[in-house]
């Protein structure tokens, strides 16, 4: 597969209020849940054992927090480009992501600032499901390259 070009998102080009490109994944099969348990070394039964999850009072097996973070990082870094740093991602999980859900990540730029020489952009980020908006809500701060950087 041919390598894509390095495409930067420059701090100067970002507008407060702009929406970043959404991402989507799903429907999430049982196989996918098992793959995530294995790939995260996370064998908490609520993530792969339907009976156990329901005994805990949950509707079905649910994706873990690290997977949700990974999805939010994919959302932010896919937009911010390979020379960005996802400085902070903070999120709260409301409704669980369960089997057969389709999850869409979205984000909007809420602020820009320069601190300690770093060009920072703040975003609201969240995960929608097919039947629930903002099942997970979060905030991100990303360091972007500046056209004024010497490097």
């Amino acid at each position, binding site marked *: 597969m041919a390598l894509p070009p390095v495409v930067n998102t420059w701090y100067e080009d970002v507008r407060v209020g702009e929406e970043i490109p959404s991402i989507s994944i799903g429907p999430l099969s049982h196989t996918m849940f098992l793959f995530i348990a294995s*790939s995260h070394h996370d*064998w908490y039964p609520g993530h792969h054992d339907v009976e156990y999850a329901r005994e805990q009072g949950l509707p079905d097996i649910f994706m873990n*927090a690290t*997977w949700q973070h990974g999805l939010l990082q994919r959302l932010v*870094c896919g937009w911010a480009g390979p*020379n960005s740093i996802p400085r902070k991602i903070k999120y709260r*999980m409301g409704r669980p992501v369960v089997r057969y859900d389709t999850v869409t990540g979205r984000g909007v730029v809420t602020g820009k600032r320069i601190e300690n020489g770093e060009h920072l952009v703040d975003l609201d980020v969240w995960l929608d499901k097919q039947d629930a908006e903002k099942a997970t809500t979060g905030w991100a701060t990303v360091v972007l*390259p500046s056209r004024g950087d010497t490097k």
Partner: protein
Amino acid sequence: MSEVVLETDPAGYVYRIGTEEEGMAWVGRETEPVEQPYPIDVEHIEHFVEGIQDPNPLYWSEEFGRKTRWGGRIAPWGVIVLTGEHKVWRPEWLESPRETPTLFMTVPLPGNRLLATDYEVECFQPLRPGDRVSKSEKLVSIVPKTFRVGVGHHVTVKAFFRNQRGEVCITDSRTIFRYKFGTGAGYKPAA
């Protein structure tokens, strides 16, 4: 000194059981850095990003990474979870139950189950293939809570992940709900 009471959940996690008062006395406690058993490697990175279907070439190509500020392939934050063991079975389990080495479970509380609720991750520099990660923790807070799954406490622990040079690469403030199994009202589907 009172006897330590341990309970193991179906996932194999071992909890130290105690009172809320005993738990509160632990707030502020910090652990020493412990080197994680596995280094960051390419297989971990690809396995992780496959699970989130992330095509970002920084995680897939050394050659692409060389054209960026990083000078090579890097790992997404989540790969730190792969530096620990699976903990489905370990030879040492043939002996007595061993406490799960995280303050979420070693702090004495009534709860014997957990669910994650909130995360705050800060990245200062990326991890790369070959890095050895050391982890330490600080118990930030314990707050009584009741949710439909049970009665328990929000426990917040901040973890520090350093590379082999001692540089802090990532901090991870995580809040889990640690609750006592069987004390909840159960899941009620939306009408």
